[in-house]
């Protein structure tokens, strides 16, 4: 490695090779990119991303890539980002092992999309949340945007063959306390298109939703594409949803989800999910929640120029041998006990203005706007 001026040049000059990164800090301002099969990065090095507008690592259209035994973080002042930490697209046979990913505030610290056979194991992901605008204005049934805490530790989106085991995802910064809510003005509805079934008039009038804590420790998304997943042995603490499953043929076992709004969630077309031997503690809203979501639907064949639609039903699941304790004694009980959805001081929306251009309370442009969970 030392014979190249930068890490990226070393990777480019040696496609498909194995790189040992010695124990030092590497500062980067562009994402490390690999699109060659068989590339492997390992070693004790620490990679520091200094550019908030770039991911830390990007892997594209590659097979058999391994990232191991490395630390990744963002530099001071560049930690609030709308970019993921590690992002993989259209890959096959990926492994992230023994990594530390810290201070990637919001979006996902590790995310794989449209890929096959992805393994994330023995990683530690800390401080993955950030302030965000959860923009649901493009979703007809919602039609509003609000300020939130969002971010996900590990996310799989449209991935067939997932193994997420023995990781820890922890958030230590943005706790869902009343003080944090007030400091960041969380839950304020910043824009409304029109009231809808899931955005009742009373809530819109109050300009507030208490649903401002978003994201997950582990998220399996894209329910018609993500399947055959093992999520086991993970410790997840201080998150909105511990494990959020929108996928089929999933094993969620022997995880500890602690201090979450929801412990385990299976929705939006999650089928044949096996939840066994988990510990769920200090959870304030639901320990385990199973239900169809707006994305759940039956199949349809192509007709009149409309494409065929895969079936995406929920059910066929087993919940066994889980321990659920200290329900309602976490940090978010205050936000859900005795509540009305719109139970907050009335605040005025910024009428007719794009939420994305709204300045933050500190007068700085917000960096962290991305479409929320429902709009993606």
């Amino acid at each position, binding site marked *: 490695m030392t014979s190249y001026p930068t890490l990226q040049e070393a990777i480019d000059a040696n496609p498909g*090779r*194995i*790189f*040992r990164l010695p124990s030092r800090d590497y500062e980067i301002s562009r994402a490390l990119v690999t699109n060659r099969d068989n590339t*492997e990065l*390992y070693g004790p090095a620490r990679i520091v991303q200094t550019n908030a507008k770039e991911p830390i690592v990007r892997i594209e259209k590659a097979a058999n890539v391994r990232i191991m035994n490395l630390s990744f973080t963002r530099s001071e002042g560049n930690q609030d980002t709308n970019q993921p930490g590690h992002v993989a697209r259209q890959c096959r*046979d990926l492994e992230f*092992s023994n990594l530390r990913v810290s201070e990637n505030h919001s979006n996902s610290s590790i995310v794989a999309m449209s890929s096959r*056979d992805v*393994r994330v*194991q023995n990683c530690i992901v800390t401080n993955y949340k950030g302030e965000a605008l959860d923009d649901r204005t493009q979703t007809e049934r919602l039609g509003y945007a609000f300020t939130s805490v969002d971010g996900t530790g590990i996310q799989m989106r449209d991935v067939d*063959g997932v*193994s997420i*085991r023995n990781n820890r995802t922890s958030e230590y910064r943005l706790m869902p306390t009343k003080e944090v809510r007030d400091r960041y003005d969380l839950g304020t509805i910043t824009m409304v298109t029109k009231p809808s079934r899931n955005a009742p008039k009373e809530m819109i009038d109050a300009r507030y939703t208490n649903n401002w804590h978003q994201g997950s420790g582990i998220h399996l998304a894209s329910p018609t594409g993500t399947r*055959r997943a*093992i999520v*086991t042995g993970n410790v997840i603490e201080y998150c909105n949803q511990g494990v959020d499953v929108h996928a*089929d*043929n*999933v*094993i969620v*076992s*022997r995880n500890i989800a602690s201090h979450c709004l929801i412990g385990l969630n299976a929705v939006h077309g999650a*089928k*044949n999910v*096996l939840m*066994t*031997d988990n510990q769920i503690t200090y959870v304030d809203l639901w320990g385990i929640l199973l239900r169809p979501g707006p994305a759940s639907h*039956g*199949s*349809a*064949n192509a007709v009149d120029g409309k494409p*065929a*639609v*895969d*079936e995406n*039903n929920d*059910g*066929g*699941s*087993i919940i*066994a*041998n889980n321990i659920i304790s200290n329900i309602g004694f976490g940090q978010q009980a205050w936000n859900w006990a005795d509540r009305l959805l719109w139970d907050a001081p009335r605040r005025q929306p910024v009428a007719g203005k794009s939420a994305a251009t709204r300045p933050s309370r500190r007068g700085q442009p917000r960096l962290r706007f991305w479409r929320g969970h429902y709009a993606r």
Partner: protein
Amino acid sequence: MFLSRLVRALGAAVLAATAFSLAQGQPKPVDASAYPSLQAAIDANPGRQIQLPTTEYVINTALRITRDNTELFGPARIVQSNPREPMVRIDHAKSVRLSGLTFTRSAGNQDTDQNGIEILDSSDVEISQVRVSENHTRASIYARSSADVTVQGCVIVNYKGITVDDRTASPLYGYAFKAIDGSGIQFRDVDGVVIRDNRIQEFRFLPTRAIRDHYDLGTLTVVPEVPGQLGDPDIMANKYTNNWHQGAGIQVTGPMVSKRVILSGNYIENAAQGMDVHADNVIVSGNIISHAMIGYKSMHGAKNVLLDGNQFNYVDLWGILLMPGAASHVSSNAGTDGKPEVENTDGGHIVSNNIFSNFGFGEQHWNWADRKSAYPERNVIAILFGQVPENPPIRNVLITGNQVYDSGRDTVLLDGKWVQAEPRYHYALYVEQVRQPAPVNVQVHGNLFDAGFEGVTNIPADKL
């Protein structure tokens, strides 16, 4: 005063011990690149840790490890160019570790009658984070006559090949046929087995009609004059068996010896049998088996198997099959050679919290549908009679908390169309009632079973 002295004394002792251990230190790993070959590095450093740099090593004889405490680790890729040799042989050694390495065979030398990594007569062996690919037939990782062997975090890809399944030496069969065969991980006569968190996939030989026809699979190559006891007359008459997809993702056999087995967190795709276990005191939990002929099978004297929390998906013949096999027998004080023989019976199992989905919608359904077999095929959970009358019956099986899910009800994609499809299994649960030796004491509680095309179960209501 006394306490503070004690604390100081203890602190001094700890410091002294620390200094001692630091001074002694562990020897640095040996750098394999300092030797003319990998084998030379191993031979010159018995019992040492050997680090293999980021290099591709081409070998033409198996790496042989015969000394205790040898460890090979590192990011190297080892390419076996000789199909008549294994990749590694660990023989009569203790406490050997292989970790982080990649093994494969070179193009043109991948069809082999040899194993990939072979562990013989050894103990306390660990294979971790290793990748083994393109070892076509036999087993990619094989252990025999050993104790305490762990295989974890490994990836095994493309382990099958075309072979002849030669059963001519068996008086029960007496014939041979063309087959796809090969196993990802195979243990024979091993006490103390941990196989966890591995991924085992086959992408080459899928059991399609085109593959069957292309390789003439199932055709008998030897037809005996007198068929064996298990030689189906139809097979003899047609000179063809449809049982041409053989092997397993994971097989643990040698039921008289193999015991204390954990199979956990593995992902197995496109196997003939996801797991085939002939052993005692076995935990099978948290595995996903997708696209297989049989999801899990235990027979030939498998006792006290705990099958919990597994997913079986796109399995076509049986999801879980438990039965006595030809090798099952009771104990005898005058067994073979007149010596006492230990019992080898089946049963004492728990089948709990497993999910079965898309049964019959895999790639081998075509090979088993529309058969008029008297054998109870295509049942999701099957507890069957013995292969031969002398087998002791399987007994004491608890079936609880399982889910057999009729995926066809939600529609499935068939011939490019989403359609509701009838179930492709006879029963969610089949327990033999008539043919002997029939199962004894099968308890069924708290399951959620969608009915097959003959019903939920063949067990009469008054026996449930």
